[in-house]
Structures are given as C-alpha cells and as structure tokens.
C-alpha cells in the first residue's frame, strides 16, 4: 500500500495526445511499481482545475507531479507550493514560464518543431516560396507558449520576419494571409480554413497547430477541390496524423514523443523518491529535449526527415 504516488496533470482529457500521455505514464507506473493519479483541465487553457489538482496531490502526499501546464505563467505559484512541500515537479510538453519554475521539463522543442515544418514547406515550394500564400491555423486567442512557439518557429523556418517573436499575428509579410483559431480540434480547423480560403482562395500553404486541426482543415480543402495542391503542415506525430501523411492529407508533420515524456517523467519521480536526484536538462537547453522528428514522404534537401512508414513505427496512438 505504501507505493509512492506520482500525479499527472494534463491540459484536457479530450485531446488524444494527452490521453496517450496518460497511457504511457500508467504503463510505466505499473511496471516500476508506483501509483499514478491523473487529473486534467476542463478545456485547453483551464488553469484553476490544474491548481486544484496540484493541491489535491499535495494533500495526497504525492512524491512528484508531471504537468502539461495550461497557463505556463499562472500555474507557477501553485508549483512553488508543491516544490516547497518537497515534491519533484516536471513540466511535460509545455514548459513553465520561467522554465526553471519546474525541476525539469521534458518536452518537444516546439519552436524547433515549427521551424522544421517551415523549412520543409519553403524548400518544397522552392522559388515559389517568394509569393506563397500562407494560412496560419493557431490554437486559441490566448497566446499560450506552445501555440506561440510553433507558429513563430514555422514562420522563421519559412523565412518570414517575426516582428515580436513572443506574439502571434503581428507579422506584416504579405505572404501570411491571416491567422484564425481552431481550439486544436477538427471543427475549428475546418471553419478556420474555410474562412481563410474565402479571404484568399489561392492559399497554398497551411500551417496547423496540431493534427486534429489539420484534419479539419483538410476537409475544407477537399470540399473545394484544393486537397491536392495545398501543402498542409502540422505538429504531433500521432498515428492518425502519420497515416494522414501517408495518405497525402498532411505534407509533413513534426513528431513529438508524449509516451517518452510521460515514461521519462515517471522514472524521474521514482528516481527522486529513491535517491533524491533530480534530472538534468539537455546540454545547451533549459529543458530535456524529448526529440522531434520531421515525418514526410517527400523529403527535401537540407532538412532531415523520416518517411511515414518509419513514422508509423514510432507514432504514439
């Protein structure tokens, strides 16, 4: 009965990404004999539920917390309390702000993930990149860290001037047709795509915050017969997403490794419970990079990538 407890707090419990993360953590916890408690926000951006979850984990006497913060800055005081209570706190997927508010961060380099698909898209277009028409399908109106990092990373990779790299939507480059929000889900992806297409029917590059949004955007493109000549890029690397790469729905996606984040997190907490040792950040970064892989079936020069078949072996759900 005296198994150490580790808590996992995800952004939502509707996004498959987090559900996979939960599964990964559960498997690992089972394997190493640690008890897992799971919590989540009610919607992408819900900070209060996460604060409440942190408190309940303190009350439960947990050894460590793994959290994908909904509001990287706002959650920090609650995290401070958990750490003051002697717990190990690890941010997964999305860093805290400041990043060192957590004992460690196991995450995709989201800026890099964006940059990879940006570079790939620019290389695919070649000369035509100079007068590309780009649609930006972001998460929501809240400018949260993953959203900003991926969006700005993509634009940088594509070769567009970022203005303020901490803000979405302040770019003046005429190639960016517009930004719209998707809530990281299919219905939002479709509606945003439709609206941007109405604004500019000749869009030929579509950036999407994640693969559910990309799937929705694709339906909008298909409805107007543009599914073959538009480049859709995304981030996630879920198995449905990789399948979509294989099927030509998505041109390229930056694969993340949620299972790895979760299992590394559980291990770190176990280690901490046993020895008090805390994980160390990847050399030169303020987080432990769990890696990112560009998955595409049309590789381009200068950007390393893996095929969708290889991707299917590594994908997470």
């Amino acid at each position: 009965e005296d198994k150490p407890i580790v808590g996992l707090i995800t952004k939502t419990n509707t996004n498959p990404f987090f559900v996979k993360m939960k599964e990964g953590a559960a498997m690992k916890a089972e394997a190493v004999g640690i008890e897992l408690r799971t919590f989540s926000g009610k919607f992408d951006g819900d900070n209060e539920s996460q604060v409440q979850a942190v408190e309940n984990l303190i009350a439960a006497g947990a050894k460590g917390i793994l959290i994908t913060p909904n509001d990287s800055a706002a959650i920090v005081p609650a995290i401070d309390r958990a750490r003051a209570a002697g717990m190990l706190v690890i941010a997964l997927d999305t860093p805290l702000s400041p990043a060192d508010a957590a004992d460690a961060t196991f995450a995709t380099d989201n800026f890099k993930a964006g940059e990879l698909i940006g570079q790939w898209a620019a290389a695919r277009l070649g000369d035509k990149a100079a007068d590309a028409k780009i649609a930006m399908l972001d998460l929501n109106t809240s400018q949260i860290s993953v959203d900003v990092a991926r969006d700005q990373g993509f634009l940088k990779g594509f070769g567009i001037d970022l203005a303020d790299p901490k803000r979405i939507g302040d770019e003046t480059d005429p190639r960016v047709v517009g930004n719209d929000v998707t809530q990281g889900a299919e219905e939002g992806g479709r509606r945003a795509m439709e609206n941007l297409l109405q604004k500019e029917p000749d869009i030929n590059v579509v950036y999407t915050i994640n693969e559910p949004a990309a799937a929705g955007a694709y339906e909008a493109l298909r409805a107007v017969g543009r599914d073959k000549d538009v480049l859709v890029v995304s981030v996630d690397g879920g198995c449905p997403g990789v399948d979509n790469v294989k099927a030509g729905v998505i041109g390229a996606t930056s694969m993340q490794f949620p299972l790895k984040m979760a299992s590394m997190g559980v291990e770190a907490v176990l280690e901490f419970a046993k020895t008090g040792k805390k994980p160390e950040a990847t050399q030169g970064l303020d987080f432990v990079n769990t890696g990112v892989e560009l998955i595409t079936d049309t590789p381009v020069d200068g950007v390393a990538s893996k095929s969708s078949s290889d991707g299917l072996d590594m994908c997470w759900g």
Partner: protein
Amino acid sequence: MSNTTVKSAAAEHELVAAAASGDFASFKRESEPLLTRLHRFFHRYPTAAPAIVLLMAVLVFSTLIGDRFLHPFNLSLIVQQVTIIGILGIAQTLIILTAGIDLSVGAIMVLTSVIMGRFGVEYGLSPILALGFGLFAGALAGYINGLLVTFFRLPPFIVTLGTWNIFFALNLWYSGSQTIRSQAIDAAAPILHWTGQSIELLGARFTYGSLMMLVLFAIVWYALNWTAWGRHVYATGDDPAAARLAGIRTDRILRSVYIVAGFFCAVAAWALIGRIGSVSPQAGMMANLDSITAVVIGGCSLFGGRGSIFGTLLGALVVGVFRNGLALSGVDVLWQDFTVGLLIIIAVGLDQWIRKV
C-alpha cells in the same frame, strides 16, 4: 321542468341585463393606425426580428466586403457552417417551446458520433446499422432526460446540467479519447460521410448535410403547425397545468419532445462526421450555449409556448453571417465573440420592442 317558475327566481335587475344589447364582454377598439397594423403584423410573424437583423447584416457586409461576401459559394458556405448548430437548434427549439432548456445537446451529439464511428469502423457492423444505432442512442439519451423531467419532476436545466456531465464522461470513456480517421470511415462506413458530400447549384455548393438540415426544419415546422402533436407541444409549454386540464397528456408530450430532441442531436452527429471527416471526442463542447443562442436570437421565448422554428434557422444564420463576415473583413476572432454578444442583446431587444410597440 317548470322553466317559468325557475326563471321567476331571478332578481329583476338581472333580467334587465339579459335584455341588454351587446356581445359577451365586448369592449371598444380604436380604428387602427398604420403603426398598430405594423405592430400586429410583427406579432403575427414572430420571426420578423431575426429576419430584419439578418437582412441588415447581409447588407452591411456586402457593402463592406463586396463580391467575396455575396458570392453564391460564400453564402452556401455560411449555410454549411451553421448546419450543426442549426440541427441542434431544432432540438433546442422543441425543448425551449416546452419551457425547458437542454444543456446536454452537444454531449449527446459527440457521444452518438463516437457510437456511429466505433460501430461502423471497429466492430465491422453494417454501416447502415451503425448509423441506426447512433440515432437510436440519441433518442435513448433524450428519453433519459425526458424521464428525469417528467417522472422525477426535476427542472430541465438541472437534469441536462447533470446528464451533460454524464454523457460527456461516457463519450470520453467509450472513445478512449481516440479520433477515428476520415480514411477509416471512408473505407468501412462511407454512409457516415454522406452528409459531407455536396452538389453544386449556380456556383453555390450545398452539402447533403445542410440540405438535410433545411428539410428537417421544414418537417418540424409541419409537425409543429399542422399536427395535433405540435399544438400540444405549444399548449404544454404555454401553461402545463392548463394543458393537462384541457385533456393533454403533458408528460407524454414532454417525453416525446425529449426523445425527438435526442434523435436530432444524433442527426447532428451524422452531419458533424460529414463535416469534419473524422470522429473526434473533442467536438461539441460549446454546442449547448451556441444552440441556445440561435434559438433566442430566433425569437423563441425561454418561458415556453411562443416562438417559431424558422426563427431558429434565422438565428443560426445571423450568427453564421456575422462570424463569416467579420472573418472576411479580417477582424480579430476576439471581436467576433464580442459581436455575437452584442447581437444576442440587440436581436432580442429588437424583438421585445417590436412586440411591445
């Protein structure tokens, strides 16, 4: 019977009254000036307010944006975009006409879409059967709401606040929060995508889903206005006690309304699958308030018994036109929400004003 002797018992002063001219409780009516007639016109056509708002919105956006907005394709796109909320709005209208409210419509929709998807794709069931199961599940979910409302006499707001949580949790549990991909559906149960297919008409493109929505509006209009059931729905919402005494089995009517509403939520699920291609457990979170918004902009009274089903269609279109128009004008999404908020107040305010003049 000795009628005459009986009559003589009546006091003399009362017999005077019997002889008086004039009708039963007659009263004076002024000759009607234009404004009054206008007022009566609006009173007879309760969808006037949303129709006016819609017209004005279209006018404003077409001058602001021009051709791109008025292009048949864009107009049909708006219809596509309001399909889901429109169908849920039908369900919501029926409930609101009975003086209820349904917070669970979105949850029923997403739960039934997952049922359709899993039955069709994973269990290898005949696609038609999968669809049928989903529709049945929707009706069942509605029946549960209806039972809680009629049998336990719980307020609809509370019942559906509860079942909203319950159905949503069931959805997450049953779907394992996994998306079912569009391609998988295409392969195993293409009928689920039928609602997403479209036909072109003079440059406009209508999905079968949105045509289905229009047909459903027509059917429900017929049912509400040309069948006894419809009259009973209005009477029940108007004054349940009176309706019961007038001989209407109000509980039965209420249950039938909840069942039909649940069924329509499942139909919305079908339209949803057609629209977003895949089956996603993330859909429909905000659908309850969005559908209520469409209904109230459409002029239905939240107190029941008053309102027209076509008002809801107009209400959904008003919101759709604004969101589309603002997006085309390049307005930040933030201000879209702001505008929808204003719109609700203005449309309903206009409605009140028209009716009260």
